[in-house]
């Protein structure tokens, strides 16, 4: 996973609430293994027309927003399906952070595993950021995980918090499985006690 410390980049405002992960990447692409081609699948059906040409009315196709690496969204971004492919597509496209008032829980968790930072800010703050980005197309913002601040186009710093466990994981680009394997003795001990307490959970394996 790519470590995340601070990113300063063009930010694109997405105003719709409840942008679901089916919208982020349609189901018919999900059999593909993770790879660079996911960049072209991001927001596929709203980004491209029937013939595969870019739709001019989709904001990320507008010249000012082409280099966007940050999304500022509205409530419940990433709701719906658990498909981590949604984060793969964001990451492959180059998106490093999504700022929104709330996220789908599974999407939120998936983001940290891939190195895309989901930043929760109050609804009014997100709306104000989106208004600024519409008024100044192509403006940059900074998302600083070390300082836990978003700096808007107007230079105003907005604080946010990420829980320390996930923050540390992202800052270091940590391998979470390796970290957990470090607890193996504790897990094994727990497992023995748990199996003694609830022996009915043990499934006899057939040969």
């Amino acid at each position: 996973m790519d470590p995340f410390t601070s990113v300063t980049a063009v930010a694109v405002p997405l105003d719709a609430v409840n942008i679901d992960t089916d919208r982020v990447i349609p189901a018919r692409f999900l059999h593909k293994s993770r790879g660079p081609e996911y960049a072209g699948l991001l927001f596929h059906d709203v980004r491209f027309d029937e013939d595969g040409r870019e739709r001019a009315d989709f904001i990320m196709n507008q010249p000012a927003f082409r280099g966007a690496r940050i999304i500022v969204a509205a409530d419940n971004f990433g709701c719906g399906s658990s498909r981590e492919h949604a984060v793969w597509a964001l990451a492959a496209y180059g998106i490093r952070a999504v700022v929104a008032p709330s996220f789908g829980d599974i999407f939120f968790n998936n983001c940290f595993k891939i190195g895309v930072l989901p930043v929760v800010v109050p609804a009014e703050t997100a709306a104000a950021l989106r208004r600024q980005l519409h008024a100044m197309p192509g403006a940059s913002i900074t998302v600083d995980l070390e300082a836990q601040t978003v700096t808007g186009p107007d230079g105003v710093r907005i604080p946010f918090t990420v829980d320390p466990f996930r923050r540390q994981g992202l800052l270091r680009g940590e391998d979470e499985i390796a970290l957990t394997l470090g607890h193996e003795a504790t897990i094994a001990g727990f497992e023995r006690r748990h199996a003694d307490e609830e022996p009915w959970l043990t499934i006899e394996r057939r040969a």
Partner: protein
Amino acid sequence: MSTTPRTLFEKIWSRHVVTEGAGGMSLLYIDRLLMHDGAVHTFDRLRKAGRAIRRPDAIAATADHYVPTATGPRGIADPAIRGMVTEMARHTADLRIPYFGPGDARQGIVHVMGPEQGFTLPGITLVCGDSHTATHGAFGCLAFGIGASELEHVLVTSCLWQRKPRAMRIRVEGARPPGVAAKDVILALIASISAAGGTGHVIEYAGAAIAAMSMDERMTVCNMSIEAGARAGMVAPDATTYAYLEGRPFAPAGAQWDAARAHWETLPSDEGAVFDAEVALDAATLAPTVTWGTSPQEALPITGRVPDPAETADPARRSAIERMLAYMGLAANTPLTAIKVDRVFIGSCTNSRLEDLRSAAAVVRGRRVVVPAWVVAGSGLIKRAAEAEGLDRIFREAGFEWREPGCSMCIGMNGDTGRPGERVASTSNRNFEGRQGKGVRTHLMSPAMAAAAAVTGRLTDVRALAGEAR
């Protein structure tokens, strides 16, 4: 022993915490894992990383997302899609994981198969790489969907790092009027608390209307918890739960059953347990409910009309309604019962169980469909049981296609999709843009309501249809 009253969720959570990490993250032990063909790449990734699967004995698997549901030989033309299913069979065989694939009567939608096999039990933690894992909470367990990285993590460590969710109780009191299904209860609930209303929470469904529900109905309710933003939903185990589970292949038997049941009976939330949020709903006030927009929260009683954006003061909400009406091809103020449909889909992990098929068949009997209409049973066992009751004959005689089990047109990953612009009356769980195929317009409803739409060709109040001649 603690005397502080505890919730069902708290009891299960605290019993599964292995250790605490920094900043309130817990390492949670995962008792059981369900897998489906959509997750097959995970095996390759782990092999490449040189990581072993810690407890293959805690896994059961099936194929549902990519399997064809057309009758006849179940061949898959596209080699990439075919590989998703054949690789699943190979990997599970290598690891001696029980696998119910095509050709096995136990094959079916993963959230139908788990409970049907008694793999899903009260009091456990259960995960699956699918957001509708919330379904299993109907048995009084903590069950939630995870992404691909979390799936790898569980496979290798039997654990997950989790921040403890908050607990919400939704009490549904009163009795459901005739014609009002479990699906109507959950659609009305999501409309009431919104698609983000349950974010960060585990929902416990309680109250007389929930206690009166069968397991099939409780699964329908818990299934759509994710559509309210909650990762998990649950119902306290009771006599209905035990009657369903006893004798199932993976359920404990004999003395183990007695010991398990004694434990399960301690699980329901204690009197006086405090929830972080409480919601109440009176089932007696509900009507058959349908969605008109592209989020499950956009649901209304069938007696209603399509909303008018002009009547909405909030500009963001107004533009959201306008966008949804444009996608759905609907005009403001149209009576919902005037909306014509092109296709009907009865199936999905929400509504493909035997009781769902019975309630649809009761509407269909002696009538004819006027649009293409499918029934896709949740599993081979359900299909077989329905056939034993003659339900297949009722559907076929009415002009329905009686298909093989799978996720099918709920998600369309196997190619079961509508055509662009088509309007589908569907018993599935998501009406998102493109969910049932590019440009397809989805209206969510109960199996009886979908059956009514199939025989009239429009959204129909099943209560009105009941009195009409067949």
